[in-house]
């Protein structure tokens, strides 16, 4: 590493005198990697301990304070063959605590159900027929002794959530759950005191166990996707060269840069911050930010945005603290509005809960009144009513949705798509219109040579060797197309191009004006309206290269596949000819060009007003408000941070295929969720009449509840496969 780095913000101090840092490590996948990393790090002087977490692909390193500099650890890992990226010092947050709490509750509930079941099964198996009812009473009392404290502890997550809902004067799934658990425990206790034959302790704790399992799965899926997102952002964390007050330039992670700092940007580098140019001139490619492919000239006082590429010159940028009237400002204002207006999508499970709770409670009440009217004592009527509550408790319903979500999210992850939110799956399945941004979404973020087929191989090879001498990012595209490896000794004219003597003749590569290739340029520009042009001049002739952002390799087939079931549109901030060309290539009839962020939102709103549910796929700073406003949204991993934060899902890699896969998997998952909910309804249709008639014994309740939960879970496993 050529430059010193400042990593101090990543270092934690768990104990006095000891420093620790968490790192995301690339390429760890087996036991050998664990050993190599841990041993390799411990050999470094001063390192006290290193521990790899294979599941989260992270390593925690501890060293004696002051014994070594943090960058040394990164270098060590680099030489071991595992590039590492520091992770912002982690704080134990509420989410993590809640997850551990749920797992503890699940453990307690499982312990209670096993032991209560042990006692109950012996009663069902014949201990009940003992002439002496003392044994039965003893078993009931023992069950109460286990079930009551365990339920009080394990049921807290439900009781708390139900209390919150009731205080807010609404009903969620936890209200009927809490009512059923409390009532069944109270009734069983009452039965026990009265020396009755039946008690429902095992039903109550089993209910809790199944429900907690569903709740825990849901929680874990959300945490895993969040962890992974944190890893990704650490891996792609941009660095910037910060100018310190002592005049020294040091590379620092973006997280360590504060508003007001001065940052150095060299020609050919991506600008990592938003700010104002203090010094220097350059042409800046803002295509990833605004979608516009034509470079913009910047001079002192101009605004530049993170993600844009400085093409021709070095810049000194003052990191922005207070900005007014800029693109970023407009985006932020729109974003705040869009998030506010986002129609709160009602999740499937909540929708089910909305009619479920009243129906269950009314049925139980009707049963109670019915038995009273038929002349049964109020005790008997109460018992039957409570068995109705127990048997209808949404055991299967609590598992129906989270189990499918976990399996489907796993399947998507293997296909290169990470979900940011759990309900994205449902909204993705409901989307019927797909709106694409062009630049960076349908096209690749990296420019590539477009008209390579029209250029003689010899010329291309010569231009490639000459391009090696240039630092201009567009020159890289020519180097790659030519596969050039031997640079020419060339002279660089800043902002114009490079020139070299080759076998006695002068070669020039650079801007069209620099090479005097205006005539050829006009011809090439007509064919490739969205391309940037680079000219190459030999004594005999001039050649013009068109360098453009190529379509993603599978864009054509993926868009065609999506168009079969969805309407497809392109909304771009780019010029008309450039957008038209891409739309023609992809066979998309509907496209709009020169769209400002507000225009994109307006178009999405118009679609929603027409009853459509648009999926927005976009990546730029200018797409962020639209991503937030759309019914559901996806971003590529190369997207601007702000866009990624607004998207419901992020896809990895160069290919566009994950978007189509996501739509297919989401549709499958949604149909499985509905199927699961219907399975629970059918189960209730069979079990409830039995309960209302008073035929349900504790044994039947236990069998019915566990079999429906298992059925729903097995059905959820089918979400693995996207076919069908």
């Amino acid at each position, binding site marked *: 590493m050529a430059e010193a780095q400042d990593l101090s913000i990543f270092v934690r101090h768990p104990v006095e005198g000891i420093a620790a840092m968490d790192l995301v490590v690339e390429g760890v996948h087996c*036991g050998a990697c*664990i050993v190599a990393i841990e041993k390799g790090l411990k050999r470094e002087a001063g390192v006290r301990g290193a521990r790899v977490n294979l*599941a989260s692909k992270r390593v925690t390193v501890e060293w004696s304070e002051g014994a070594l500099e943090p960058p040394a650890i990164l270098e060590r890992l680099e030489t071991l063959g595992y590039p590492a990226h520091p992770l912002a010092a982690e704080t134990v947050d509420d989410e993590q605590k809640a997850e551990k709490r749920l*797992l*503890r509750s699940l453990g307690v509930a499982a312990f209670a159900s096993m032991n209560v079941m*042990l006692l109950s099964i012996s009663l069902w198996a014949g201990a009940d027929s003992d002439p002496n009812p003392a*044994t039965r009473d003893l078993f009931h009392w023992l069950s109460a002794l286990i079930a009551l404290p365990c339920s009080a502890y394990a049921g807290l997550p439900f009781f708390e959530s139900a209390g919150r809902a009731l205080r807010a004067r609404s009903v969620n799934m936890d209200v009927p759950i809490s009512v059923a658990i409390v009532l069944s425990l109270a009734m069983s206790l009452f039965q026990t005191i009265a020396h009755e034959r039946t008690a429902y302790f095992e039903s109550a704790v089993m209910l809790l166990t199944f429900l907690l399992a569903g709740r825990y799965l849901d929680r874990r899926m959300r945490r895993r996707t969040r962890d992974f997102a944190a890893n990704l952002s650490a891996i792609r964390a941009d660095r910037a060269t910060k100018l310190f007050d002592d005049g020294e330039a040091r590379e620092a992670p973006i997280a360590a840069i504060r508003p007001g700092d001065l940052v150095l940007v060299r020609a050919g580098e991506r600008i990592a911050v938003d700010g104002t140019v203090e010094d220097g001139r350059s042409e800046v490619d803002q295509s990833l930010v605004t979608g516009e492919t034509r470079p913009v000239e910047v001079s002192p006082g101009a605004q530049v945005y993170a993600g844009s590429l400085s093409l021709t010159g070095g810049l000194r940028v003052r990191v922005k603290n207070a900005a007014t009237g800029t693109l970023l400002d407009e985006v932020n204002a729109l974003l705040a509005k869009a998030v506010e207006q986002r129609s709160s999508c009602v999740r499937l499970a909540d929708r089910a809960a909305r009619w479920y709770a009243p129906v269950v409670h009314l049925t139980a009440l009707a049963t109670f009144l019915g038995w009273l009217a038929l002349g049964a004592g109020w005790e008997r009527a109460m018992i039957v009513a409570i068995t109705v509550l127990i048997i209808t408790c949404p055991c299967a319903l609590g598992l129906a949705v989270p189990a499918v979500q976990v399996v489907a999210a796993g399947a998507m992850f293997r296909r290169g798509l990470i979900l940011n939110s759990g309900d994205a799956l449902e909204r993705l399945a409901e989307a019927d219109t797909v709106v694409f941004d062009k630049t960076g979404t349908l096209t690749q973020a990296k420019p590539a040579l477009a008209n390579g087929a029209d250029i003689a191989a010899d010329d291309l090879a010569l231009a490639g060797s000459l391009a090696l001498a240039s630092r201009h990012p567009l020159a890289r595209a020519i180097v790659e197309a030519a596969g050039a490896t031997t640079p020419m000794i060339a002279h660089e004219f800043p902002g114009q191009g490079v020139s070299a003597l080759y076998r006695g003749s002068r070669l020039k590569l650079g801007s069209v004006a620099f090479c005097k290739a205006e005539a050829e340029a006009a011809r090439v520009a007509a064919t490739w309206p969205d391309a940037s042009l680079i000219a190459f001049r030999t004594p005999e002739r001039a050649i013009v290269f068109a360098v453009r952002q190529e379509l993603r390799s599978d864009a054509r087939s993926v868009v065609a596949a999506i168009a079969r079931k969805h309407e497809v549109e392109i909304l771009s901030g780019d010029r008309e000819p450039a957008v038209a060309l891409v739309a023609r290539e992809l066979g998309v009839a509907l496209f709009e060009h020169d769209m400002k962020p507000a225009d994109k939102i307006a178009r999405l709103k118009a679609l929603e007003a027409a009853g459509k549910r648009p999926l927005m796929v976009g990546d730029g700073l200018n797409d962020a408000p639209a991503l937030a406003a759309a019914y559901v949204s996806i971003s590529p991993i190369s997207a601007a941070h702000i866009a990624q934060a607004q998207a419901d899902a992020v896809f990895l890699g160069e290919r566009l295929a994950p978007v189509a896969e996501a739509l297919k998997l989401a549709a499958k998952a949604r149909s499985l969720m509905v199927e699961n909910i219907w399975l629970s309804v059918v189960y209730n249709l069979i079990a409830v009449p039995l309960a209302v008639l008073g035929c349900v014994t504790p044994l039947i309740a236990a069998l019915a509840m566990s079999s429906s939960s298992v059925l729903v879970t097995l059905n959820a496993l089918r979400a693995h496969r996207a076919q069908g």
Partner: protein
Amino acid sequence: MNVLVYLVPLALALGGLGLAAFLWALRHGQFDDLEGAAWRAISDDDLPED
């Protein structure tokens, strides 16, 4: 039925032991890295080096 006098407490104690073990494991981060633990079991870096 006298056998119940010690069998029931025994069953409960065993169950409680399992629960205590689970809670201990949870508190000590035994479930933090489920994949790595499988590999660590077969790594032989704890053998004395020759």
